[in-house]
């Protein structure tokens, strides 16, 4: 029997995401794979949690289950996923029945997922939680331009932001712009600092736009002054009422939902927003350090290198200002020097945006650079979780220790690398109790039962009977 490790309760306001008792199985032709068993963790706002493990440990499946993107063959049998006050897994009781038929579990699915949940998930995905994948080439649409793909995120999730920007440009008195331009155009420094200074000028709705211009390193000061002054825009009354409607309702007002049969009208109004989205896309690309922005926007994914594509993915992920970014091995497909650039980008985003990140990797070095906390997964269990320095300086779980000793050190030569004998168990028939007990050098009687997370220090939990009080 699986022990309940967390009683059912919604998270406190300290947490952004709480995953509780997650259990996911996959039904295949040859049997049921118990991929994830009793996984629980939380992420606080602004925190970066790393999830480390080797092939088959379930880290990717855990991450994508948060957005309920588990593939068809996978079922969430148990667990809660609390995000922004809602349990994203509240429909799981209705989702399936596992029927035993001649020793083979056959999945019979009740396809009627709660409609409300689908709508909530659509609102969350890309908007409050976004994802960066490992293989940027397959995650970008090869037949659409970069500009359109990034714009699409904005047009789907953040229309008021676009309309507000235009309205602000319409409303601002031109003298105020001149003043700001003259006084701040020469500013250098981090984006944060510039934004602060601009914020003090009391020009609501224009902070982002002005900051973007000032922050650019590739144009001259004179150019910047001109561009800031040019922000002033006159919008005609028909468009004004359209934009006000968008800002007020958060979506395109019904009156303006022209059918595709009248493309001219659609283009007239929607086109305004599309143009704005493209401008915001340019700002986003500059935030992720992309060179040659104007040609990139017009270009296609195959024209970019791996590192640049990954930057585009990151730009799309931060576009709607999500509270949580799930990054699944975002640098594993990149060269070492490019990886260093992308990790630097992640660090900057962490500092500037206060987003939480769930960072999945098999590379402990990368994890050490980026994460505040890290969880170690093995064969579908979360076996240890701790603050980052704590985990590296004081690993407790035998698997964690084995994993750390198997990493080839880059600073000296060693005789031989640490080994973990045996191999990962078949998850169709996982060992009873602690799934590491077939390989653990310290295994003893009690290990045939699954240990609960045992606190060994502040914020440091291990699922291992060796640490039982």
């Amino acid at each position, binding site marked *: 029997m699986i022990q309940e490790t967390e009683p059912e309760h919604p998270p406190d306001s300290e947490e952004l995401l709480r995953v509780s008792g997650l259990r996911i199985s996959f039904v295949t032709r040859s049997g049921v794979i118990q991929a994830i068993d009793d996984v629980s963790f939380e992420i606080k706002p602004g925190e970066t949690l790393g999830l480390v493990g*080797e*092939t088959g440990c379930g880290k990717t499946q855990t991450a994508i289950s948060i957005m309920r993107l588990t593939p068809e063959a996978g079922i969430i049998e148990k667990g809660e996923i609390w995000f922004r006050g809602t349990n994203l897994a509240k429909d799981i009781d209705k989702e399936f029945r596992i029927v035993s038929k001649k020793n083979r579990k056959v999945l019979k699915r009740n396809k009627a997922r709660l409609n409300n949940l689908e709508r909530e998930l659509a609102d969350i995905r890309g908007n409050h939680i976004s994802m960066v994948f490992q293989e940027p080439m397959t995650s970008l649409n090869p037949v659409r331009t970069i500009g359109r793909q990034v714009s699409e995120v904005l047009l789907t999730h953040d229309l008021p932001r676009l309309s507000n920007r235009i309205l602000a440009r319409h409303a601002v008195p031109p003298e105020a712009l001149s003043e700001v331009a003259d006084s701040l155009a020469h500013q250098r420094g981090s984006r944060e600092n510039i934004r602060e200074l601009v914020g003090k000028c009391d020009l609501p709705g224009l902070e982002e736009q002005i900051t973007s211009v000032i922050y650019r390193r590739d144009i*001259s*000061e004179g150019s910047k002054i001109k561009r800031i002054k040019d922000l002033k825009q006159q919008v005609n009354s028909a468009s004004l009422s359209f934009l006000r409607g968008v800002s007020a309702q958060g979506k395109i007002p019904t009156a303006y939902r022209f059918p595709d049969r009248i493309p001219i009208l659609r283009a007239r109004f929607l086109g305004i927003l599309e143009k704005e989205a493209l401008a915001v896309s340019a700002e986003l690309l500059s935030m992720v350090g992309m060179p040659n922005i104007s040609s990139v926007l017009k270009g296609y994914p195959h024209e970019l*290198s791996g*590192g*640049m594509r990954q930057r585009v993915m990151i730009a799309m992920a931060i576009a709607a200002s999500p509270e949580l970014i799930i990054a699944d091995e975002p640098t594993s497909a990149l*060269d*070492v*020097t*490019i*990886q*260093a*650039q992308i*990790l*630097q980008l992640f660090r900057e985003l962490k500092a500037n945006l206060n987003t939480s990140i769930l960072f999945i990797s*098999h*590379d*402990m*070095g*990368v*994890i*050490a*650079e980026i994460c505040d906390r890290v969880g170690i997964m093995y064969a579908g269990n979360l076996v240890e979780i701790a603050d*980052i*320095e704590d985990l*590296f*300086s004081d690993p407790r779980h035998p698997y964690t220790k*084995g*994993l*750390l000793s*198997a*990493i*080839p*050190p*880059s*600073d*000296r*030569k*060693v005789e*031989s*690398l*640490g*080994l*973990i004998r045996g*191999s*990962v168990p078949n998850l169709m028939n996982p060992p009873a109790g602690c799934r590491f007990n077939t390989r653990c050098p310290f295994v003893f009687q009690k290990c045939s039962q699954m240990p609960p997370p045992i606190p060994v220090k502040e914020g440091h939990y291990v699922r291992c009977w060796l640490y039982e009080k």
Partner: protein
Amino acid sequence: MKSEVDPAKEQRVLLQTENLSKLFPVKGDKVIGGTKYVHAVDEADVTISENEVVGLVGESGCGKTTLGRLVLRLMEPSKGTAFFLIPRSSLDRYRSVPVGSKEARTIEKEYSIYRFDRRKMKEFRKNTQIVFQDPFSSLDPHMTIRAIVAEPMKAHHYRPKNEIDTKVSKLLEECGLGEQFLEKLPHELSGGQRQRVAIARALAMSPRLIVLDEPTSALDVSVQAQILNLLKRFKSELGLSFLFISHHLAVVRQMSDEIYVMYAGQIVERGETEAVFNSPAHPYTIALMSAIPVPDPTTKREKILLKGEIPDLVRPPGGCRFHPRCPSALGNCGWSPEEVIASLSEVLASSGLPSVSEALKSRDCRVIDGQTFEAHVGESLDESKTESIRRVVAEKRDNQSHFALRAVKEITSQSDTTGATIRVSLTMSLVPKFTGLDKRHFVACNLFPPGSAGRDGSHEFGGVEPPVRGEQH
């Protein structure tokens, strides 16, 4: 010719490449003026001795995979050669005579793998093997494990035939796979197990040299540790040599005795592993090593972030191919007139000389040869204006985005009725040659100008100070 040393007993180099180059024609691109080529490997000299592990490190596109294939003649080179089991004396002889001379060709006929006839080729194939990166596509999905490992033995007509099976079982056992794996098909095995099969296959005919192309890059950390330990054991027990190709610096450090660092088809640094890791000399090597993420959150290491991307090898940068990204580039590192024009035009635009900047970008600018270009400006330029251009160049060239300006040697202007013509001449660029930092550490970089004598600078250098930046002209 009577040599002092009996060639049969003399020291031999297991594998030595000389000036090995490979160009791949680009398909389909019909450019006026001929086919375009990808300059994948450029003049590589690699030495592999008996019972040695040579590591080949670099990022994608650096040519290490191609070099690995060339060394086993799984590909034919465009230029250069590679010798197998060549006696030291013949190698020295080869290097001292002119290329293409009769003597050189005789030596090639004897020892160059690209000139081997069928018989010698068979011998070579028996003595060399390869293990690939992808454990999934390196085993034929239709063959049983037993058949896969036995294949090389069958191909070389291993005798006695009835012992093949026992040998296969023994090899698999040595690699940690039991009897039950013999009849399985590859897809039933995990990645780590497949790599073990690949290694067992490689050992089947007891080769002297095995090329391992990223053998553990597709494996988990713990499985990688097992495989690396296995390889180390085989190396010491069987006296093998490996050419260990990887982009993973920590792994290469653990495995190799000597390493070669490659960038964009060129070898930029080589030497004893510890020497190169402890005191990397080439700016690329330094940047590469600083980029490795260390599994220790407490080390806050200064990371050198290279700007830009790995270059397109159809038109690789001139001189040292790393110069556009190098944080320590000098004026003679291979800047082309185009690169200098772009940089100059940019700095002049924001320094109050927009007319000149525009002229440089327009068609009024002509490249005269590899070291000079001219631009015609609409207005006249007196000496003070020309001097201000020189001043801007001197100011801006310490900014890494404008290192190209370091190549500027002289700026002159001449005015006439239509305006003025600016003439800029550049320093001659130098393709860096290998210099010895000490007996077992060599670097090809203009920061370390060549000493004297010998292609590999076998002259004790000792305590070299790189020239102060900006002074190089």
